[in-house]
């Protein structure tokens, strides 16, 4: 697997055609960074998984930035040596997002960790169910 720069160029172009976001290929730091809207993220990850062989989710991280959460996904492929770093923002007032566990199985673990730290609910992940859904408010004692 060699770091052929033209493959990274084609990939950046493909990402732009598919979701309309600019993919920044940094040749010196050897990575491709994309800022994605949260509605297009799962589509982008699925596209990278199926068409470009980005089968590995190396890292998923969440950080607070002002009134938003920044979620970072780092993907790698065995065919291309350049990793893709996809970032999206979530508003703190609506901390709900979709899970990517159906694409990357190991994402369930990362999402569980993010849920325990920040309280972001990932829809589709059974471990990150909102507290009030798990413990519905009822009138009296629940039947066991």
């Amino acid at each position: 697997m060699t770091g052929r720069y033209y493959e990274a160029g084609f990939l950046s172009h493909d990402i732009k055609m598919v979701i309309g976001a600019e993919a920044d290929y940094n040749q010196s730091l050897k990575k491709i960074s994309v800022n994605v809207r949260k509605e297009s993220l799962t589509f982008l990850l699925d596209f990278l998984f199926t068409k470009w062989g980005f089968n590995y989710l190396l890292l998923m991280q969440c950080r607070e930035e002002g009134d938003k959460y920044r979620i970072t996904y780092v993907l790698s492929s065995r065919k291309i040596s350049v990793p893709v770093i996809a970032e999206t923002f979530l508003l703190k007032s609506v901390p709900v997002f979709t899970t990517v566990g159906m694409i990357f199985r190991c994402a369930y673990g990362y999402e569980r960790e993010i849920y325990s730290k920040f309280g972001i609910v990932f829809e589709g992940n059974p471990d990150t169910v909102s507290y009030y859904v798990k413990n519905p408010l009822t009138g009296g004692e629940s039947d066991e």
Partner: protein
Amino acid sequence: MNRRYPRFYYTPSREIVNGNVQIDYEIENGRITNPFVYFGYDRVISSADIGKRKYVEAIPLVSRMSFADKHTCEELFASSVEELNSTEVPLLAKHLRVLILELSRISAFFLNVFNISSALKFSMAKSWSLSDMKRVQKLIVEIKGSEFYSPFIIPGGVRCNVLSKTMGLVEREIGLLESKLNDYDSLLFQNELFRIRTSGVGEITKREITEFGVTGPSARAGNVSFDVRRRLPYEIYNEIKLDAAAYSFSNVYDRVLCRRNEIADSIRIIRYILSNIPHETEFINREGYSSGLLKVREGTVFRRIEGVNGEFVCLMSSDGSERPVNVKFRSPVYHIAGELLSKLIGRNSIDDIDLVLASVFLIPMEVNL
């Protein structure tokens, strides 16, 4: 909801898993069902603690993030800073870094053999591997000239040069260890009892390896050959040819055998370094350090290094000041320690829990980095 079966709690000893782990499970018809693995609060330093400090203050703390992969963490941190600053590392420092990394890989192999021998109650292999691990750690301390936990790989190079008499000591010790590998072969790998006990146990399928992103010896033993040193060479690994053996299934036997074969590689790399070490005296490039601070240029970098258990990664963002904006480390143990470990335990019988846990070389303090 009434439970049909009681829930059992099992805490494997620290000789088997290198930290605090608790497993709770149910038993149905002699098989384990619904296992869940809890990782204890072994973590001393995490990425968040590193991110709160200045770069120069974080250097000694990075060494304390893991006791088995400590040099990998140091190398990740140092190389991330160097990549952002475009710092040229002296050739001598690159050789010394690889020397320390390979020695820590050898030390981790002996620790793994210690874990497996503890699980199987093979006392001879247990005492041999413990003494050999201590031997290699003393050698590392001798090279560093300081404590085991003091940083050696720092941004810009290494902390100190190595004396020629220490290099002579390294050569002697490596010769001794190489001859001992034959003893380990006859004790373990050619031992029919060991082979019967470990073959067919704790198998990870190729599909699970790719699905969960498992890397390192656990993946290579399942014929998913991915080694960061070969695919994305760093330091002087582009000059070194690494062997790639083929294995059949990633069971306990193949995982230990894979580690043993890679130690032969590590010994060859150390011999290469000893014969090709440059005759220079400069071991650190102090560019970026000024008035006791280390300033890092703006940018985001993502580094990948082959650790003891697989691919260790680090994401670092900087805004040009002496403090990082974001630092996140992720250990290869994380991908094994989640759902995959519960599946492995559920698939094997109660007698084999210890063996399965020892063979994946769990390091609980690395799980929540």
